[in-house]
């Protein structure tokens, strides 16, 4: 007799049900004793699941950004990478790249070349510190921008169909992906 006909007692939440998975907590009906390979197969599953969501979101945000986020807001969320994780991932990569390559790419002394050496000496440490601080906290800047863009876009374009949180979700995806586009253009600074 198959599992779909037997009454299953969930090992995780003690719920009783029919089927292959517990409708209450998602626990599998059948569990076998753990062997050494399970450690790696679970890890592989977690990794491929993580990548599948990321690749799907990358594809959607590159081909139909507004439609896919609207569908996400309306409830079609299973395949998507979480918007906050999307921001943290891209923001983290951007912060790392800017902090590591900025000095190699852009000479700030050029900006102050018209100043006398004495003035330059006085202002340069302050400017360098400010720029470094800005790049170090790049993800926080993005978060702050997202709050503002979310608010104004919903007020100006939303026609009361969307609330602020939905506007924020839109910009978590859109500004993160826009940042990714900027990152892809970043290597052109080398030429």
């Amino acid at each position, binding site marked *: 007799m198959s599992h779909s006909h037997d009454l299953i007692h969930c090992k995780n939440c003690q719920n009783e049900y029919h089927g292959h998975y517990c409708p209450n907590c998602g626990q599998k009906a059948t569990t076998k004793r753990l062997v050494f390979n399970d450690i790696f197969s679970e890890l592989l599953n977690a990794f491929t699941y993580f990548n599948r969501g990321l690749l799907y979101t990358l594809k959607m945000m590159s081909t*139909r*950004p*507004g*439609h896919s*986020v*609207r569908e996400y807001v309306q409830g079609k969320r299973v395949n998507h990478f979480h918007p906050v994780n999307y921001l943290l991932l891209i923001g983290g990569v951007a912060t790392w790249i800017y902090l590591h390559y900025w000095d*190699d*790419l*852009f*000479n700030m002394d*050029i*900006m102050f070349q018209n100043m*006398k050496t*004495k*003035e330059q000496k*006085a*202002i340069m440490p*302050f400017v360098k510190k*400010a720029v470094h601080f800005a790049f170090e906290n790049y993800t926080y800047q993005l978060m*702050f*921008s997202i709050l*503002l*863009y979310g*608010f*104004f*876009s919903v*007020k*100006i*374009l*939303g*026609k009361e*169909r*969307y609330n602020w949180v939905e506007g924020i979700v*839109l910009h978590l995806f*859109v500004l993160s*992906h*826009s940042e990714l*586009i*900027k990152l892809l*253009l*970043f290597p*052109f*600074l*080398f030429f």
Partner: protein
Amino acid sequence: MKNSIIGFYAQSLISSLISMVYMIWAYKQFFEEENTWSAIGKTLLAILAAGVVIAVVSGFGGFFISLFGDKAALINAVTGGK
């Protein structure tokens, strides 16, 4: 490998333009705006509004830095030590 300031500005300008076009495209789809010009205008207005708030907040930040920062160094830098 130091780059010229022109290259930096050109890259910043191009990437900002691409981001803006991307945002207009996304807004048009998300808010289901049928008129493209209306979508462009409203998107630019939203960007401008957010930009004004960011500028105001940054201005306050600069103001507080000048209040509590190394005043002598700043005055020296602006006046050239005169």
